[in-house]
């Protein structure tokens, strides 16, 4: 019974699966059919618009979309495929011959799953084929557009035939029609849809004011200090040029966008009039941007804000000329758009293009003739350097020549490229100059940003300087990353080519068999820096919050935080290196090869390194200890991995290699505690009562508060010296670092006490015995000194005192 039930259940499951599969199959089939239809439509469209560039661009966008759709379609099978594969894995392989047979349900389910999988594979195969077709269509569009481009570029139109009265009339008609279309529409709207018109206009004014207020006022005030007169740094002038171009342009664009959106949504303009408004708005925005850029570049009326070294008249002339070129170019662009809307005769467009190209050429020629610089010595105006002047003249001549000889397409194309590429290059140059100015030391400090960072985040001069280098690099990269693709796209490179190039540049530069990925290297460096910072943070937290609170011994704290630091940096380095794409196993190979070299050459360093680790682990001394190692005695300042810094009492820093500290005996005065013994040697004259001295010294020791009672001080009667009875007062002090101070105090006390009791501290004394014969010999020959000889003979023997006073052994302090 249960077996029967399970069978039925299984059957239901399989059936449901099959049914679901069937309906899914139908859905995908219809989707495949739809995709197939779109590709067929694209192919047909291409054949229909072989000579229409604009249309081809549109088809290209469609094809790109289709390729993406195909990929998405393929990806949409993934969950189902995953489920099927998982289930198949659970079911296992079908039993081979000789193996026991499996239940028929399992076989049924497997075959159903396999069938579904095969169906999906077929779908995917179809999608793959379609994607190939779509991509072929894309490349065909590319070929066609190249042909069209070449045709328009190199088609010759006899221009004598265009400047006829008829065309002039047609041109006038175009303008008139433009005006009529707009005004009649406005009139219509004014008469019949007054409310909508008023609402749209009112809202436009309102929103524009808000945007203007927000962008211009707030940001403008933020950057307002440039407006104040006075000497501005080069960087300030550059940033002023940048912002004074960007902010007003953005404000205008936002306002125009708002206006367009409102007028579109309120239905004020539609059809032709809407297109005309579009053309007008885009032209206004473009002209305004170029005008602001040119104004910022040449600053014709404010020499103090100028970012170039041009003379005043030259700056004004260049301003006028470039503005003129931009005006001509944009008028041409606008008129072309308008004649496209009205489908005017080609002759009008050609005539207008010829005039525009000629004007641009002439203006360019005039710009090449300007003398922008001043000779430093004579003060005479100087021309452009040949490297700028000659290409400008050649370009101008080329444009004029092309226009006059009838190659209208070429003239128009080159004039357009000169202006657009020129504008991009000029903008890039401002960016590059800013980067360069920023990299110069001290620039950031003088700027508003620098002051802000200093005031708000407490950046000091050094970190500001480092930040400025990083920022300038970032600006360079940004300029290159935005400007170069813009120029490339402008010159007809394909979007996919450019994005693939950038992608490869960052992820996969192949040199021989080595793959370098800039992105990975940057990422690795970033990870390393992050790891470093985290390590330092962790170290500080561990030291401050955990170990300081747990009252861990300072030496242990120091050891642990040092080891944590090295460990963290090591881990960060390993993570960084592997993230940068270097294979760690190959590094291990290199390390293996190097270890032989290390064995010989770097033996010493490795020895010190290992010794350093041992010092940190074993801790024979810690930072702050007073140690004696060989000839060096002093306080330990820092234990690092290769060497240990010791500061002697003369404040000389001695760097002692760690291996020395491991291999030789190191005395540590403050190893477990700071208690230490001070020995003071005292000599008293023969004849003094030694017991009295003994007691006196003990009394003195007991009287000093710094002398420890336990272990008790004691006096040792050390020797019967040549000239004195030698004693040594030995006592313990709590802090051996104060030993010399206490010893000095004790010596003063001893001298005072001895003087008070009349105890003498003798000089070292010698008995000198001289024989009289020797004296005779010595003085006999010396005639002029008979008296002395007599004295000498009399003094058969005499004591000659000689010495330097008491010389108590210095206490070990």
């Amino acid at each position: 019974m249960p077996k029967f039930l399970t069978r039925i259940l299984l059957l239901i499951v399989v059936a449901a699966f099959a049914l679901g599969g069937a309906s899914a199959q139908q859905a995908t089939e219809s989707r495949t059919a739809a995709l197939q239809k779109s590709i067929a439509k694209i192919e047909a469209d291409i054949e229909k618009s072989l000579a229409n560039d604009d249309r081809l661009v549109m088809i290209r966008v469609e094809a790109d979309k289709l390729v993406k759709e195909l990929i998405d379609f393929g990806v949409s099978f993934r969950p189902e495929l995953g489920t099927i594969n998982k289930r198949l894995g659970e079911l296992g392989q079908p039993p081979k011959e000789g193996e026991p047979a499996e239940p028929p349900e399992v076989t049924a389910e497997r075959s159903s799953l396999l069938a579904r999988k095969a169906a999906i594979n077929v779908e995917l195969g179809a999608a793959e084929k379609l994607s190939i077709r779509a991509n072929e269509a894309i490349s065909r569009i590319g070929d066609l557009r190249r042909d069209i481009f070449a045709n328009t570029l190199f088609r010759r139109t006899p221009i004598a035939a265009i400047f006829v009265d008829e065309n002039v009339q047609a041109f006038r008609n175009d303008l008139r029609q433009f005006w009529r279309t707009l005004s009649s529409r406005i009139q219509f709207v004014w008469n019949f849809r007054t409310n909508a018109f008023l609402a749209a206009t009112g809202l436009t004014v309102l929103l524009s004011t808000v945007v203007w207020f927000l962008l211009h006022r707030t940001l403008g005030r933020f950057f307002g200090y440039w407006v104040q007169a006075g000497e501005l740094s080069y960087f300030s002038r550059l940033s002023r040029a940048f912002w004074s171009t960007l902010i007003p342009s953005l404000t205008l664009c936002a306002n125009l966008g708002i206006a367009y959106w409102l007028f579109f949504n309120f239905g004020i303009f539609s059809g032709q009039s809407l297109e005309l408004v579009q053309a007008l708005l885009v032209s206004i925005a473009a002209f305004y941007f170029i005008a602001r850029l040119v104004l910022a570049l040449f600053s014709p009326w404010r020499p103090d804000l100028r970012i170039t070294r041009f003379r005043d008249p030259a700056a004004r002339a260049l301003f006028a000329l470039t503005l003129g070129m931009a005006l001509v170019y944009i008028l041409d662009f606008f008129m072309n758009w308008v004649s496209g809307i009205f489908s005017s005769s080609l002759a009008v467009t050609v005539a207008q293009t010829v005039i525009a190209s000629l004007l641009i050429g002439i203006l360019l020629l005039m710009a090449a003739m300007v003398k922008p610089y001043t000779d430093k010595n004579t003060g005479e105006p100087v021309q452009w350097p040949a490297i700028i002047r000659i290409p400008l003249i050649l370009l101008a001549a080329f444009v004029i020549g092309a226009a006059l000889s009838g190659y209208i397409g070429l003239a128009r194309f080159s004039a357009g490229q000169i202006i657009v590429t020129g504008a991009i290059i000029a903008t890039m140059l401002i960016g590059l100059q800013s980067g360069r100015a920023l990299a110069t030391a001290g620039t950031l400090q003088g700027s508003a940003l620098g002051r802000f960072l200093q005031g708000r985040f407490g950046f000091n001069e050094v970190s500001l300087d480092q930040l400025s280098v990083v920022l300038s690099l970032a600006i360079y990269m940004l300029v290159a990353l935005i400007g170069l693709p813009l120029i490339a796209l402008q010159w007809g490179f394909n979007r996919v080519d450019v994005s693939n190039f950038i992608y490869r540049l960052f992820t996969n530069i192949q040199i021989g068999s080595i793959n370098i990925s800039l992105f990975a290297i940057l990422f690795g460096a970033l990870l390393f820096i992050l790891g470093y910072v985290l390590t330092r943070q962790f170290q500080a937290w561990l030291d401050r919050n955990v170990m300081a609170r747990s009252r861990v011994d300072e030496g242990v704290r120091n050891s642990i935080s040092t080891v944590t630091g090295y460990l963290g940096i090591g881990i960060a380095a390993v993570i960084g290196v592997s993230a940068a794409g270097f294979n760690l196993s190959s590094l291990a190979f290199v390390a293996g090869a190097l270890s032989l070299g290390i064995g010989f050459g770097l033996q010493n360093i490795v020895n010190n390194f290992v010794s350093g680790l041992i010092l940190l682990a074993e801790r024979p001394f810690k930072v702050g200890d007073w140690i004696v190692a060989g000839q060096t005695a002093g306080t330990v300042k820092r234990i690092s991995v290769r060497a240990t810094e010791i500061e002697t009492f003369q404040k000389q820093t001695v760097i002692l290699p760690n291996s020395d500290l491991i291999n030789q005996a190191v005395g540590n005065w403050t190893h477990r505690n700071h208690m230490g013994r001070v020995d003071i040697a005292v000599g008293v004259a023969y004849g003094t009562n030694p017991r009295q001295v003994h007691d006196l010294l003990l009394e003195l020791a007991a009287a000093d508060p710094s002398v420890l009672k336990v272990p008790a001080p004691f006096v040792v009667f050390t020797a019967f010296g040549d000239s004195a009875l030698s004693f040594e007062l030995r006592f313990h002090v709590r802090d051996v670092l104060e030993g010399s101070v206490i010893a000095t105090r004790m010596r003063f006390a001893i001298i005072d006490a001895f003087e008070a009791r009349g105890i003498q501290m003798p000089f070292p004394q010698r008995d000198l015995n001289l024989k009289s014969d020797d004296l005779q010999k010595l003085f006999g020959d010396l005639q002029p000194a008979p008296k002395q000889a007599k004295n000498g003979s009399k003094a058969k023997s005499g004591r000659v005192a000689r010495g330097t006073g008491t010389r108590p052994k210095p206490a070990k302090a």
Partner: protein
Amino acid sequence: MKSLIAAIFIVAGLGGAAQAATIINTDGQDYSLQITEGGAQSEIGIAAGQSVSVCPAGCFVTMPNGDRETLSGGETVEIVNGKATIK
């Protein structure tokens, strides 16, 4: 001019440039995959234990066992015992 405006938008869009898919071969055996990317079919070999980055713009892949998969970029594909799993 229109192309400049288009170019500016494209450059702005390049910021989110596509990410490649990564295929990792965890087996001790070399495999070859058939990849269709941008209308071109190509065969790539993945050595044992190697990982390769493919098709930032999305592609169709035929796995060694005949399974077909579609990658949109950014995925990690692991080949374990000749079977591919996408993560």
